[in-house]
Protein backbone atom coordinates (compact mmCIF):
# COMPACT_ATOMS: atom_id res chain seq x y z
CA UNK A 1 0.00 0.00 0.00
CA UNK A 2 1.14 3.48 -0.83
CA UNK A 3 0.27 6.74 0.83
CA UNK A 4 1.00 9.20 -1.94
CA UNK A 5 0.19 12.13 0.33
CA UNK A 6 3.31 11.27 2.31
CA UNK A 7 5.39 10.43 -0.71
CA UNK A 8 4.64 13.82 -2.23
CA UNK A 9 6.67 15.52 0.48
CA UNK A 10 9.77 13.85 -0.98
CA UNK A 11 9.30 15.68 -4.29
CA UNK A 12 10.12 19.38 -3.97
CA UNK A 13 8.63 20.34 -7.33
CA UNK A 14 5.17 19.12 -6.33
CA UNK A 15 4.95 21.97 -3.85
CA UNK A 16 5.24 24.60 -6.54
CA UNK A 17 2.39 26.54 -8.04
CA UNK A 18 1.71 26.79 -11.75
CA UNK A 19 -0.65 28.96 -13.83
CA UNK A 20 -2.20 31.67 -11.70
CA UNK A 21 -1.22 30.10 -8.41
CA UNK A 22 -2.83 26.74 -9.02
CA UNK A 23 -1.25 23.72 -7.35
CA UNK A 24 0.63 21.45 -9.73
CA UNK A 25 -1.10 18.19 -10.70
CA UNK A 26 1.65 16.36 -12.53
CA UNK A 27 0.30 13.68 -14.85
CA UNK A 28 3.12 13.55 -17.40
CA UNK A 29 5.39 10.95 -15.82
CA UNK A 30 5.39 8.72 -18.88
CA UNK A 31 7.25 11.55 -20.61
CA UNK A 32 9.53 12.31 -17.67
CA UNK A 33 9.08 11.73 -13.95
CA UNK A 34 9.80 14.10 -11.08
CA UNK A 35 12.74 13.57 -8.74
CA UNK A 36 12.72 12.94 -5.00
CA UNK A 37 15.07 14.87 -2.73
CA UNK A 38 17.13 11.70 -2.26
CA UNK A 39 18.02 11.71 -5.95
CA UNK A 40 18.70 15.44 -6.18
CA UNK A 41 20.94 15.26 -3.13
CA UNK A 42 22.83 12.20 -4.33
CA UNK A 43 23.82 14.07 -7.49
CA UNK A 44 24.63 17.17 -5.51
CA UNK A 45 26.77 15.27 -3.00
CA UNK A 46 28.68 13.52 -5.75
CA UNK A 47 29.82 16.84 -7.20
CA UNK A 48 30.58 18.34 -3.79
CA UNK A 49 32.63 15.48 -2.40
CA UNK A 50 33.60 12.76 -4.85
CA UNK A 51 33.83 13.81 -8.50
CA UNK A 52 36.81 12.35 -10.35
CA UNK A 53 37.51 10.46 -13.56
CA UNK A 54 36.34 6.86 -13.29
CA UNK A 55 38.16 3.70 -14.29
CA UNK A 56 41.36 5.61 -14.87
CA UNK A 57 43.94 7.13 -12.64
CA UNK A 58 44.80 6.02 -9.17
CA UNK A 59 44.11 9.03 -6.99
CA UNK A 60 41.57 8.96 -4.17
CA UNK A 61 38.79 10.85 -5.99
CA UNK A 62 39.17 8.58 -9.00
CA UNK A 63 38.95 5.55 -6.74
CA UNK A 64 35.91 6.83 -4.88
CA UNK A 65 34.18 7.87 -8.09
CA UNK A 66 34.83 4.50 -9.67
CA UNK A 67 33.42 2.78 -6.61
CA UNK A 68 30.32 4.99 -6.65
CA UNK A 69 29.87 4.42 -10.38
CA UNK A 70 30.22 0.63 -10.14
CA UNK A 71 28.05 0.43 -7.02
CA UNK A 72 25.38 2.31 -8.96
CA UNK A 73 25.67 -0.22 -11.76
CA UNK A 74 25.27 -3.09 -9.30
CA UNK A 75 22.21 -1.41 -7.78
CA UNK A 76 20.51 -0.87 -11.11
CA UNK A 77 21.41 -4.43 -12.18
CA UNK A 78 19.89 -5.90 -9.04
CA UNK A 79 16.73 -3.85 -9.57
CA UNK A 80 16.06 -5.55 -12.92
CA UNK A 81 17.31 -9.00 -11.95
CA UNK A 82 20.59 -8.75 -13.84
CA UNK A 83 24.29 -9.09 -13.15
CA UNK A 84 26.38 -5.96 -12.86
CA UNK A 85 28.35 -6.72 -16.02
CA UNK A 86 25.10 -6.91 -17.98
CA UNK A 87 24.29 -3.22 -17.50
CA UNK A 88 25.70 -0.62 -19.91
CA UNK A 89 25.18 3.07 -19.15
CA UNK A 90 23.73 5.13 -21.98
CA UNK A 91 22.41 8.67 -22.36
CA UNK A 92 18.81 7.45 -22.39
CA UNK A 93 16.77 4.45 -23.51
CA UNK A 94 16.85 5.60 -27.13
CA UNK A 95 20.64 5.37 -27.14
CA UNK A 96 20.43 1.96 -25.49
CA UNK A 97 18.23 0.65 -28.31
CA UNK A 98 20.49 2.29 -30.90
CA UNK A 99 23.51 0.64 -29.28
CA UNK A 100 22.09 -2.74 -30.24
CA UNK A 101 20.92 -1.68 -33.70
CA UNK A 102 24.19 0.08 -34.57
CA UNK A 103 26.18 -2.78 -33.07
CA UNK A 104 24.38 -5.09 -35.49
CA UNK A 105 25.02 -2.68 -38.37
CA UNK A 106 28.70 -2.62 -37.41
CA UNK A 107 28.87 -6.41 -37.18
CA UNK A 108 27.26 -6.60 -40.60
CA UNK A 109 29.96 -4.25 -41.92
CA UNK A 110 32.67 -6.51 -40.58
CA UNK A 111 33.48 -4.81 -37.26
CA UNK A 112 34.05 -7.31 -34.46
CA UNK A 113 35.22 -9.93 -36.93
CA UNK A 114 34.23 -13.58 -36.72
CA UNK A 115 33.36 -13.29 -33.03
CA UNK A 116 30.47 -11.03 -34.01
CA UNK A 117 29.25 -13.28 -36.81
CA UNK A 118 25.97 -14.02 -35.07
CA UNK A 119 25.07 -10.36 -35.32
CA UNK A 120 25.48 -10.12 -39.06
CA UNK A 121 22.29 -9.55 -41.00
CA UNK A 122 21.54 -8.78 -44.62
CA UNK A 123 19.11 -9.17 -47.50
CA UNK A 124 16.63 -11.97 -46.87
CA UNK A 125 16.79 -11.57 -43.11
CA UNK A 126 13.90 -10.07 -41.18
CA UNK A 127 13.75 -7.62 -38.31
CA UNK A 128 10.44 -7.87 -36.46
CA UNK A 129 8.85 -5.15 -34.36
CA UNK A 130 5.22 -4.56 -33.32
CA UNK A 131 2.72 -2.03 -34.61
CA UNK A 132 2.64 -0.28 -31.24
CA UNK A 133 6.26 0.78 -30.92
CA UNK A 134 7.52 4.14 -29.72
CA UNK A 135 9.68 5.75 -32.42
CA UNK A 136 12.73 4.84 -30.33
CA UNK A 137 12.05 1.15 -30.88
CA UNK A 138 10.91 1.46 -34.48
CA UNK A 139 13.12 3.90 -36.35
CA UNK A 140 16.46 2.28 -35.37
CA UNK A 141 15.23 -1.06 -36.73
CA UNK A 142 13.69 0.47 -39.82
CA UNK A 143 16.97 2.22 -40.59
CA UNK A 144 18.99 -0.89 -39.75
CA UNK A 145 16.92 -2.66 -42.38
CA UNK A 146 17.69 0.13 -44.85
CA UNK A 147 21.43 -0.04 -44.09
CA UNK A 148 21.78 -3.81 -44.24
CA UNK A 149 19.17 -4.71 -46.83
CA UNK A 150 17.16 -6.73 -44.33
CA UNK A 151 13.35 -6.44 -44.25
CA UNK A 152 11.30 -4.86 -41.48
CA UNK A 153 8.12 -6.73 -40.54
CA UNK A 154 5.79 -6.27 -37.60
CA UNK A 155 3.42 -8.08 -35.30
CA UNK A 156 -0.03 -6.54 -35.76
CA UNK A 157 -2.21 -5.12 -32.98
CA UNK A 158 -5.94 -5.40 -32.49
CA UNK A 159 -8.46 -2.57 -32.54
CA UNK A 160 -7.73 -1.67 -28.95
CA UNK A 161 -3.96 -1.79 -29.37
CA UNK A 162 -3.24 -5.26 -27.96
CA UNK A 163 -0.23 -6.96 -29.53
CA UNK A 164 -1.67 -9.91 -31.43
CA UNK A 165 -0.19 -13.13 -30.10
CA UNK A 166 -2.28 -15.50 -32.17
CA UNK A 167 -0.16 -15.54 -35.28
CA UNK A 168 3.35 -15.26 -33.93
CA UNK A 169 4.37 -18.39 -35.79
CA UNK A 170 3.58 -16.86 -39.13
CA UNK A 171 4.74 -13.32 -38.34
CA UNK A 172 8.05 -14.31 -36.77
CA UNK A 173 9.41 -16.47 -39.57
CA UNK A 174 12.55 -18.54 -39.83
CA UNK A 175 14.17 -15.54 -41.45
CA UNK A 176 13.73 -13.38 -38.34
CA UNK A 177 17.07 -12.29 -36.89
CA UNK A 178 15.84 -9.67 -34.42
CA UNK A 179 12.54 -9.31 -32.57
CA UNK A 180 12.20 -5.93 -30.85
CA UNK A 181 9.07 -5.10 -28.90
CA UNK A 182 7.78 -2.88 -26.17
CA UNK A 183 7.05 -4.18 -22.72
CA UNK A 184 4.39 -1.53 -22.09
CA UNK A 185 2.80 0.77 -24.64
CA UNK A 186 3.39 4.42 -23.88
CA UNK A 187 -0.04 5.30 -25.34
CA UNK A 188 -2.48 2.61 -24.19
CA UNK A 189 -0.56 1.51 -21.08
CA UNK A 190 -1.06 -2.13 -22.14
CA UNK A 191 1.53 -4.64 -20.97
CA UNK A 192 2.79 -7.00 -23.68
CA UNK A 193 3.03 -10.66 -22.63
CA UNK A 194 6.74 -11.29 -23.08
CA UNK A 195 6.86 -15.04 -22.77
CA UNK A 196 5.19 -16.17 -26.03
CA UNK A 197 7.19 -13.69 -28.10
CA UNK A 198 10.48 -14.72 -26.54
CA UNK A 199 9.57 -18.37 -26.96
CA UNK A 200 8.87 -17.96 -30.65
CA UNK A 201 11.96 -15.78 -31.20
CA UNK A 202 14.14 -18.36 -29.47
CA UNK A 203 12.61 -21.06 -31.58
CA UNK A 204 13.76 -19.36 -34.78
CA UNK A 205 17.04 -18.20 -33.25
CA UNK A 206 16.25 -14.48 -33.30
CA UNK A 207 17.72 -11.97 -30.87
CA UNK A 208 15.10 -10.38 -28.59
CA UNK A 209 15.16 -6.71 -27.62
CA UNK A 210 12.71 -5.39 -25.02
CA UNK A 211 11.80 -1.72 -24.76
CA UNK A 212 11.35 -1.62 -21.00
CA UNK A 213 10.98 2.17 -20.78
CA UNK A 214 7.48 2.08 -19.38
CA UNK A 215 7.78 -1.12 -17.38
CA UNK A 216 10.92 -0.79 -15.27
CA UNK A 217 9.75 2.51 -13.67
CA UNK A 218 6.31 1.16 -12.83
CA UNK A 219 6.37 -2.56 -11.99
CA UNK A 220 8.70 -5.33 -10.82
CA UNK A 221 10.81 -6.47 -13.77
CA UNK A 222 13.14 -9.46 -13.72
CA UNK A 223 15.02 -9.52 -17.00
CA UNK A 224 16.65 -12.89 -16.39
CA UNK A 225 13.24 -14.38 -15.76
CA UNK A 226 11.83 -12.74 -18.89
CA UNK A 227 14.64 -14.29 -20.88
CA UNK A 228 15.14 -11.43 -23.33
CA UNK A 229 18.58 -10.87 -24.82
CA UNK A 230 18.56 -7.06 -24.53
CA UNK A 231 16.43 -4.46 -22.79
CA UNK A 232 16.46 -0.68 -22.56
CA UNK A 233 15.21 1.78 -19.96
CA UNK A 234 15.78 5.38 -18.88
CA UNK A 235 16.70 6.95 -15.57
CA UNK A 236 14.55 10.05 -15.96
CA UNK A 237 11.30 8.07 -16.18
CA UNK A 238 12.03 6.19 -12.93
CA UNK A 239 12.55 9.23 -10.70
CA UNK A 240 16.23 9.48 -11.65
CA UNK A 241 18.24 12.25 -13.32
CA UNK A 242 18.05 13.23 -16.95
CA UNK A 243 21.00 12.21 -19.12
CA UNK A 244 21.19 8.55 -18.12
CA UNK A 245 19.68 5.29 -19.25
CA UNK A 246 20.71 1.68 -19.37
CA UNK A 247 21.09 -1.12 -21.84
CA UNK A 248 20.75 -4.58 -20.41
CA UNK A 249 22.39 -7.36 -22.40
CA UNK A 250 22.60 -10.99 -21.39
CA UNK A 251 26.22 -11.67 -20.52
CA UNK A 252 26.66 -14.05 -23.41
CA UNK A 253 25.12 -11.56 -25.85
CA UNK A 254 27.11 -8.52 -24.76
CA UNK A 255 30.29 -10.54 -25.03
CA UNK A 256 30.37 -10.47 -28.81
CA UNK A 257 28.30 -7.44 -29.84
CA UNK A 258 30.59 -4.83 -31.46
CA UNK A 259 30.52 -1.31 -30.00
CA UNK A 260 28.30 1.35 -31.55
CA UNK A 261 30.42 4.29 -30.48
CA UNK A 262 34.19 4.49 -30.59
CA UNK A 263 36.58 6.29 -28.29
CA UNK A 264 38.51 6.19 -25.04
CA UNK A 265 37.51 4.00 -22.14
CA UNK A 266 36.16 1.23 -24.35
CA UNK A 267 39.37 0.14 -26.03
CA UNK A 268 42.14 -2.26 -24.99
CA UNK A 269 44.85 -1.36 -27.48
CA UNK A 270 44.94 1.24 -30.20
CA UNK A 271 47.41 1.75 -32.99
CA UNK A 272 46.88 4.08 -35.91
CA UNK A 273 45.74 1.07 -37.91
CA UNK A 274 43.80 -1.06 -35.50
CA UNK A 275 41.82 -1.21 -32.29
CA UNK A 276 40.93 -4.00 -29.90
CA UNK A 277 38.11 -3.58 -27.42
CA UNK A 278 37.61 -4.13 -23.76
CA UNK A 279 35.10 -6.62 -22.45
CA UNK A 280 31.50 -5.60 -21.84
CA UNK A 281 30.18 -3.41 -20.33
CA UNK A 282 33.18 -1.09 -20.83
CA UNK A 283 33.27 -1.85 -24.55
CA UNK A 284 30.04 0.10 -24.90
CA UNK A 285 30.99 3.04 -22.70
CA UNK A 286 33.15 5.38 -24.75
CA UNK A 287 34.20 8.72 -23.37
CA UNK A 288 33.64 10.19 -19.97
CA UNK A 289 30.53 8.63 -18.54
CA UNK A 290 27.47 10.25 -16.91
CA UNK A 291 28.85 9.40 -13.49
CA UNK A 292 26.82 11.75 -11.31
CA UNK A 293 23.72 10.64 -13.21
CA UNK A 294 24.49 6.96 -12.60
CA UNK A 295 24.77 7.72 -8.90
CA UNK A 296 21.45 9.56 -9.06
CA UNK A 297 19.77 6.71 -10.92
CA UNK A 298 20.91 4.28 -8.24
CA UNK A 299 19.44 6.60 -5.59
CA UNK A 300 16.16 6.50 -7.51
CA UNK A 301 16.28 2.70 -7.52
CA UNK A 302 16.82 2.64 -3.78
CA UNK A 303 13.94 5.03 -3.30
CA UNK A 304 11.65 2.81 -5.39
CA UNK A 305 12.85 -0.35 -3.67
CA UNK A 306 11.99 1.14 -0.30
CA UNK A 307 8.43 1.66 -1.49
CA UNK A 308 8.35 -1.74 -3.19
CA UNK A 309 7.67 -2.17 -6.87
CA UNK A 310 4.64 -4.38 -6.23
CA UNK A 311 3.13 -1.47 -4.32
CA UNK A 312 4.05 0.97 -7.07
CA UNK A 313 2.42 -1.24 -9.70
CA UNK A 314 -0.74 -1.76 -7.66
CA UNK A 315 -1.06 1.95 -6.90
CA UNK A 316 -0.63 2.98 -10.52
CA UNK A 317 -2.93 0.23 -11.74
CA UNK A 318 -5.66 1.74 -9.57
CA UNK A 319 -5.02 5.29 -10.70
CA UNK A 320 -4.96 4.21 -14.33
CA UNK A 321 -8.29 2.44 -13.88
CA UNK A 322 -9.88 5.56 -12.37
CA UNK A 323 -8.65 7.72 -15.24
CA UNK A 324 -9.57 5.34 -18.01
CA UNK A 325 -13.00 4.41 -16.64
CA UNK A 326 -13.79 8.04 -15.90
CA UNK A 327 -12.68 9.25 -19.32
CA UNK A 328 -14.44 6.50 -21.21
CA UNK A 329 -17.74 7.44 -19.61
CA UNK A 330 -17.58 11.02 -20.82
CA UNK A 331 -19.68 12.06 -23.79
CA UNK A 332 -17.51 12.73 -26.84
CA UNK A 333 -14.34 11.37 -25.27
CA UNK A 334 -12.65 8.38 -26.81
CA UNK A 335 -10.16 6.31 -24.86
CA UNK A 336 -7.24 4.91 -26.85
CA UNK A 337 -7.04 1.27 -25.88
CA UNK A 338 -9.15 -0.69 -23.45
CA UNK A 339 -10.58 0.51 -20.13
CA UNK A 340 -9.76 -2.87 -18.70
CA UNK A 341 -7.13 -5.06 -20.32
CA UNK A 342 -8.78 -8.42 -19.66
CA UNK A 343 -5.87 -10.83 -19.78
CA UNK A 344 -3.45 -7.91 -20.25
CA UNK A 345 -2.18 -5.80 -17.38
CA UNK A 346 -2.18 -2.00 -17.63
CA UNK A 347 -0.17 0.77 -16.02
CA UNK A 348 -1.26 4.26 -14.93
CA UNK A 349 -1.89 5.70 -18.37
CA UNK A 350 -5.00 7.11 -20.06
CA UNK A 351 -4.77 8.61 -23.54
CA UNK A 352 -7.90 10.17 -24.98
CA UNK A 353 -9.18 11.96 -28.05
CA UNK A 354 -11.88 14.56 -27.49
CA UNK A 355 -14.31 14.76 -30.35
CA UNK A 356 -14.27 18.13 -32.03
CA UNK A 357 -11.41 19.51 -29.97
CA UNK A 358 -7.78 19.31 -31.00
CA UNK A 359 -5.39 17.74 -28.49
CA UNK A 360 -3.48 21.00 -28.11
CA UNK A 361 -6.65 22.76 -27.12
CA UNK A 362 -7.54 19.99 -24.70
CA UNK A 363 -4.11 20.25 -23.10
CA UNK A 364 -4.55 23.99 -22.75
CA UNK A 365 -7.73 23.62 -20.71
CA UNK A 366 -6.04 21.09 -18.44
CA UNK A 367 -2.92 23.25 -18.13
CA UNK A 368 -5.12 26.14 -17.06
CA UNK A 369 -6.23 23.99 -14.13
CA UNK A 370 -2.65 23.15 -13.20
CA UNK A 371 -2.85 19.69 -14.74
CA UNK A 372 0.26 18.75 -16.72
CA UNK A 373 -0.44 16.15 -19.41
CA UNK A 374 1.14 15.27 -22.73
CA UNK A 375 -0.48 16.27 -26.01
CA UNK A 376 0.43 15.16 -29.52
CA UNK A 377 1.57 11.80 -30.85
CA UNK A 378 3.82 10.86 -27.89
CA UNK A 379 6.49 9.73 -30.35
CA UNK A 380 4.17 7.10 -31.70
CA UNK A 381 2.85 8.09 -35.11
CA UNK A 382 1.99 4.58 -36.34
CA UNK A 383 -0.21 3.73 -33.36
CA UNK A 384 -2.15 6.98 -33.66
CA UNK A 385 -2.63 6.31 -37.34
CA UNK A 386 -3.90 2.86 -36.40
CA UNK A 387 -6.53 4.57 -34.26
CA UNK A 388 -7.30 7.00 -37.08
CA UNK A 389 -5.90 9.95 -35.16
CA UNK A 390 -2.97 12.34 -35.42
CA UNK A 391 -2.65 12.86 -31.70
CA UNK A 392 -4.16 12.41 -28.28
CA UNK A 393 -4.06 13.78 -24.75
CA UNK A 394 -2.29 11.50 -22.33
CA UNK A 395 -2.31 11.44 -18.54
CA UNK A 396 0.25 9.23 -16.84
CA UNK A 397 1.06 8.61 -13.20
CA UNK A 398 3.83 7.74 -10.82
CA UNK A 399 4.12 7.02 -7.10
CA UNK A 400 3.35 10.60 -6.11
CA UNK A 401 -0.05 10.79 -7.77
CA UNK A 402 -3.21 10.59 -5.73
CA UNK A 403 -6.72 9.48 -6.54
CA UNK A 404 -7.61 13.14 -6.43
CA UNK A 405 -5.14 13.74 -9.26
CA UNK A 406 -6.78 10.99 -11.30
CA UNK A 407 -10.22 12.44 -10.67
CA UNK A 408 -9.06 15.97 -11.43
CA UNK A 409 -8.00 14.72 -14.87
CA UNK A 410 -11.44 13.26 -15.53
CA UNK A 411 -13.23 16.38 -14.28
CA UNK A 412 -11.08 18.63 -16.41
CA UNK A 413 -11.73 16.44 -19.44
CA UNK A 414 -15.45 16.78 -18.81
CA UNK A 415 -15.07 20.56 -18.99
CA UNK A 416 -13.29 20.62 -22.35
CA UNK A 417 -16.17 20.33 -24.78
CA UNK A 418 -18.41 22.75 -22.93
CA UNK A 419 -15.56 25.29 -22.88
CA UNK A 420 -15.18 25.11 -26.64
CA UNK A 421 -18.92 25.03 -27.16
CA UNK A 422 -18.78 21.64 -28.84
CA UNK A 423 -21.59 19.20 -28.29
Amino acid at each position, binding site marked *: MITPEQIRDDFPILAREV*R*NGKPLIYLDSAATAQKPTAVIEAVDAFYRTTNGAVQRGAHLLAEESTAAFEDARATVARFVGAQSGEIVWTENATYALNTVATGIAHASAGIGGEAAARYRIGPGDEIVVTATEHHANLVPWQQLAAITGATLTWIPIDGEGRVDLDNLDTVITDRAKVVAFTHVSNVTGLVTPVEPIVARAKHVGAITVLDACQSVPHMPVDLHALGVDFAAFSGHKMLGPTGIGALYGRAEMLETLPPAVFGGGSVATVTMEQTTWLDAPQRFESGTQPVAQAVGMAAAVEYLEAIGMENVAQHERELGAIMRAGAAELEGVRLLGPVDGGDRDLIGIAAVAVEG*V*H*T*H*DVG*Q*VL*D*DRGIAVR*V*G*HHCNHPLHKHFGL*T*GSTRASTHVYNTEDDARAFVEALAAVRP*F*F*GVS
Partner: protein
Amino acid sequence: MSDLEQMYQQVIMDHAKQGRGKGLVDAQSRRIGESHQVNTTCGDEVTLRVGLNGEHIDSLSWDGAGCSISQASVSAMTEILADTDIDTFEEAFDAFRELMHSRGEPLDDEHLEDLLGDANAFVGVGKYPARIKCAMLGWSALRDALAKAQS
Protein backbone atom coordinates in the same frame (compact mmCIF):
# COMPACT_ATOMS: atom_id res chain seq x y z
CA MET B 1 -11.54 37.08 -18.15
CA SER B 2 -9.12 34.25 -17.26
CA ASP B 3 -5.94 33.71 -19.26
CA LEU B 4 -7.63 30.77 -20.90
CA GLU B 5 -10.63 32.86 -21.91
CA GLN B 6 -8.35 35.61 -23.14
CA MET B 7 -6.58 33.07 -25.32
CA TYR B 8 -9.72 31.57 -26.75
CA GLN B 9 -11.68 34.77 -27.38
CA GLN B 10 -14.97 34.42 -29.20
CA VAL B 11 -13.54 35.87 -32.39
CA ILE B 12 -10.90 33.12 -32.39
CA MET B 13 -13.51 30.44 -31.81
CA ASP B 14 -15.53 31.86 -34.69
CA HIS B 15 -12.59 31.89 -37.06
CA ALA B 16 -11.70 28.33 -36.04
CA LYS B 17 -15.22 27.28 -36.93
CA GLN B 18 -15.75 29.26 -40.10
CA GLY B 19 -12.29 29.05 -41.63
CA ARG B 20 -12.28 32.20 -43.82
CA GLY B 21 -10.62 31.35 -47.13
CA LYS B 22 -10.56 27.66 -46.36
CA GLY B 23 -10.60 25.38 -49.39
CA LEU B 24 -7.84 25.81 -51.96
CA VAL B 25 -8.98 27.69 -55.06
CA ASP B 26 -7.47 27.61 -58.52
CA ALA B 27 -5.85 31.00 -58.66
CA GLN B 28 -5.74 32.62 -62.11
CA SER B 29 -3.02 35.05 -61.08
CA ARG B 30 0.19 35.72 -62.98
CA ARG B 31 2.31 34.19 -60.31
CA ILE B 32 1.26 31.51 -57.88
CA GLY B 33 3.02 30.22 -54.80
CA GLU B 34 2.07 27.38 -52.52
CA SER B 35 3.49 26.28 -49.19
CA HIS B 36 2.85 23.31 -46.96
CA GLN B 37 3.79 23.83 -43.31
CA VAL B 38 3.67 21.28 -40.51
CA ASN B 39 4.08 21.82 -36.81
CA THR B 40 5.86 18.62 -35.95
CA THR B 41 5.15 18.75 -32.24
CA CYS B 42 1.40 18.42 -32.75
CA GLY B 43 0.92 17.51 -36.40
CA ASP B 44 -0.94 20.69 -37.28
CA GLU B 45 -0.73 21.45 -40.97
CA VAL B 46 -1.60 24.17 -43.37
CA THR B 47 -1.35 24.26 -47.15
CA LEU B 48 -1.56 27.82 -48.37
CA ARG B 49 -1.86 29.12 -51.93
CA VAL B 50 -1.30 32.71 -52.91
CA GLY B 51 -1.81 34.40 -56.28
CA LEU B 52 0.13 37.56 -57.07
CA ASN B 53 -0.42 40.18 -59.69
CA GLY B 54 2.64 42.33 -59.46
CA GLU B 55 2.73 43.27 -55.78
CA HIS B 56 -0.96 42.65 -55.37
CA ILE B 57 -2.28 39.60 -53.50
CA ASP B 58 -5.27 38.77 -55.59
CA SER B 59 -5.95 35.23 -54.42
CA LEU B 60 -5.43 33.68 -50.99
CA SER B 61 -6.76 30.30 -49.94
CA TRP B 62 -5.70 27.46 -47.72
CA ASP B 63 -6.51 24.08 -46.34
CA GLY B 64 -5.44 22.51 -43.11
CA ALA B 65 -6.12 20.64 -39.94
CA GLY B 66 -5.06 21.28 -36.42
CA CYS B 67 -5.77 23.08 -33.21
CA SER B 68 -8.15 25.99 -33.02
CA ILE B 69 -5.32 28.48 -32.66
CA SER B 70 -3.53 27.40 -35.83
CA GLN B 71 -6.73 27.19 -37.88
CA ALA B 72 -8.24 30.40 -36.54
CA SER B 73 -5.00 32.24 -37.09
CA VAL B 74 -4.71 31.37 -40.78
CA SER B 75 -8.39 32.25 -41.17
CA ALA B 76 -7.97 35.68 -39.56
CA MET B 77 -4.83 36.29 -41.58
CA THR B 78 -6.64 35.46 -44.80
CA GLU B 79 -9.41 37.87 -43.91
CA ILE B 80 -7.10 40.80 -43.28
CA LEU B 81 -4.63 40.18 -46.11
CA ALA B 82 -6.82 39.11 -49.02
CA ASP B 83 -6.78 41.82 -51.66
CA THR B 84 -3.81 43.69 -50.13
CA ASP B 85 -0.17 43.72 -51.22
CA ILE B 86 3.23 42.42 -50.26
CA ASP B 87 4.16 45.50 -48.27
CA THR B 88 1.01 45.15 -46.20
CA PHE B 89 1.88 41.53 -45.59
CA GLU B 90 5.39 42.42 -44.45
CA GLU B 91 4.10 45.02 -42.05
CA ALA B 92 1.36 42.77 -40.70
CA PHE B 93 3.75 39.84 -40.34
CA ASP B 94 6.12 41.86 -38.22
CA ALA B 95 3.26 43.27 -36.15
CA PHE B 96 1.79 39.82 -35.56
CA ARG B 97 5.11 38.42 -34.53
CA GLU B 98 5.58 41.30 -32.14
CA LEU B 99 2.14 40.59 -30.69
CA MET B 100 3.11 36.97 -30.16
CA HIS B 101 6.14 37.98 -28.16
CA SER B 102 4.39 40.61 -26.08
CA ARG B 103 3.55 38.10 -23.32
CA GLY B 104 -0.15 38.88 -23.45
CA GLU B 105 0.00 42.67 -23.84
CA PRO B 106 -1.87 44.22 -26.79
CA LEU B 107 0.16 46.23 -29.31
CA ASP B 108 0.36 49.86 -28.27
CA ASP B 109 0.01 51.25 -31.80
CA GLU B 110 -3.31 52.22 -33.34
CA HIS B 111 -2.12 51.82 -36.91
CA LEU B 112 -0.86 48.28 -36.33
CA GLU B 113 -3.97 47.35 -34.40
CA ASP B 114 -6.08 48.52 -37.32
CA LEU B 115 -3.89 46.56 -39.66
CA LEU B 116 -4.19 43.31 -37.67
CA GLY B 117 -7.96 43.45 -37.28
CA ASP B 118 -9.25 40.13 -35.95
CA ALA B 119 -5.67 38.92 -35.59
CA ASN B 120 -5.37 41.20 -32.55
CA ALA B 121 -7.51 38.66 -30.75
CA PHE B 122 -4.54 36.30 -30.59
CA VAL B 123 -2.92 38.50 -27.96
CA GLY B 124 -3.53 35.85 -25.28
CA VAL B 125 -1.35 33.32 -27.08
CA GLY B 126 1.70 35.34 -26.06
CA LYS B 127 1.35 33.99 -22.55
CA TYR B 128 1.84 30.43 -23.79
CA PRO B 129 5.15 30.18 -25.66
CA ALA B 130 4.40 26.61 -26.77
CA ARG B 131 1.39 27.86 -28.73
CA ILE B 132 3.12 30.67 -30.59
CA LYS B 133 4.19 28.16 -33.25
CA CYS B 134 0.51 27.27 -33.75
CA ALA B 135 -0.51 30.87 -34.27
CA MET B 136 2.43 31.54 -36.61
CA LEU B 137 1.88 28.47 -38.79
CA GLY B 138 -0.29 30.16 -41.42
CA TRP B 139 1.81 33.28 -41.41
CA SER B 140 4.94 31.26 -42.08
CA ALA B 141 3.13 29.45 -44.86
CA LEU B 142 2.13 32.72 -46.48
CA ARG B 143 5.62 34.12 -46.24
CA ASP B 144 7.00 30.98 -47.84
CA ALA B 145 4.31 30.94 -50.54
CA LEU B 146 4.97 34.59 -51.39
CA ALA B 147 8.67 33.92 -51.68
CA LYS B 148 7.93 31.09 -54.07
CA ALA B 149 5.50 33.16 -56.11
CA GLN B 150 8.14 35.85 -56.51
CA SER B 151 10.99 33.56 -57.41
